[in-house]
């Protein structure tokens, strides 16, 4: 006959075991042991719903990019390191494309509309590839755009504030479907290969 104490012992043991299993599960799924979550995918361009002004002051929206593959990058013109580097990279890829830069849309969207007016953006992108577009909008439009791309940004403090921001280049198929990201430190050959792949029918 099993004594009460033995049953209680079994129960306590089972509860403790369940606790350990749950703890391991948490560690692996949500805790520090979790594999890094893949960043969220941007919406297809066709489902984005913001509008902004381009470098000429014309009203533009993501839907207008459909028809050609697109490269989209977030940044700001007061950015001394990452943004000119990425715009220079994009300019190089456009120059190296066999099919020609006019087969693609390349769009720079500012996350700092307070300083990046239409005129400021126009002057800035004028130093890079002529196919490059520069979009700016109100704070609300900027937040809407960043949300649709599942990107993020954080404005810094003080008069010389910097802006932390998503730095990868988003790739979209001609029909507006998301097709991947080119990271800041991806090498040139690999980046050009990704862009060339977008142009395959």
């Amino acid at each position, binding site marked *: 006959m099993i004594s009460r104490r033995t049953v209680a012992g079994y129960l306590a043991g089972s509860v403790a075991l369940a606790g350990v299993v749950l703890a391991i599960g948490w560690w692996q799924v949500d805790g520090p042991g979790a594999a*890094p*979550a893949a*960043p969220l995918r941007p919406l297809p361009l066709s489902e984005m719903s913001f509008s902004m002004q381009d470098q000429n002051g014309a009203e533009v929206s993501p839907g207008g990019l459909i028809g050609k593959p697109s490269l989209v990058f977030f940044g700001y*013109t*007061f950015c*001394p*390191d*990452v943004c*000119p*580097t990425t*715009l*220079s*990279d994009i*300019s*190089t890829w456009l120059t190296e494309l066999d099919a020609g830069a006019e087969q693609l849309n390349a769009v720079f969207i500012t996350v700092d509309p307070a300083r990046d007016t239409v005129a400021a953006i126009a*002057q*800035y992108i004028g*130093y*890079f590839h002529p196919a490059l577009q520069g979009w700016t909008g109100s704070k609300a439009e900027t937040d809407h755009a960043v949300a649709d791309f599942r990107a*993020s*940004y*954080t404005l810094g403090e003080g008069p*010389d504030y*910097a802006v*932390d*921001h*998503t*730095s*990868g280049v988003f790739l979209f198929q001609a029909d507006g479907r998301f097709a991947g*990201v080119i*990271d*800041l*430190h991806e090498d040139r050959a690999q980046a050009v290969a990704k862009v060339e792949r977008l142009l395959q029918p």
Partner: protein
Amino acid sequence: MKRHFFALFLAIAASFPSLALADQPGITVEQPWSRASIGDSRPGAAYLVVQNTGTEIRVLTGVETDMAMMPQIHRTTTDANGVSQMAPAGEIEILAGESLTLAPGGLHIMLMRLNQPLVEGESYALTLVFKNGHNVDISVPILGVAARGPEN
């Protein structure tokens, strides 16, 4: 009186033989370059490779230049979500025989509050400040706004 000071100086100099090597800093700087600025309201950036050719660790603590009121060494980092940010790099140790690379998307000299625009084709003087007091003066050529490296 003067002679006493001179004698004292000689005595001190003799007790620190390394001072006699002050003109051999053991530091070589390669491929410095700066991106041209658009006006003077935006911060500028400069890049270079610092080689420690000496036999002792060297600690880079900062930079000085007349071009900017707040020149700082920054580090750009990118997190798992793909968000990039910059922060002052602090003191950087360069081991003997090692080199330190400042390149786009990583360590950079950030020229905050420019005193004048960085004009393509010109160059400017910059001092690398080391903890041991043996600073290194260099000249930094200014390339285009869209320059990506020391060659273009």
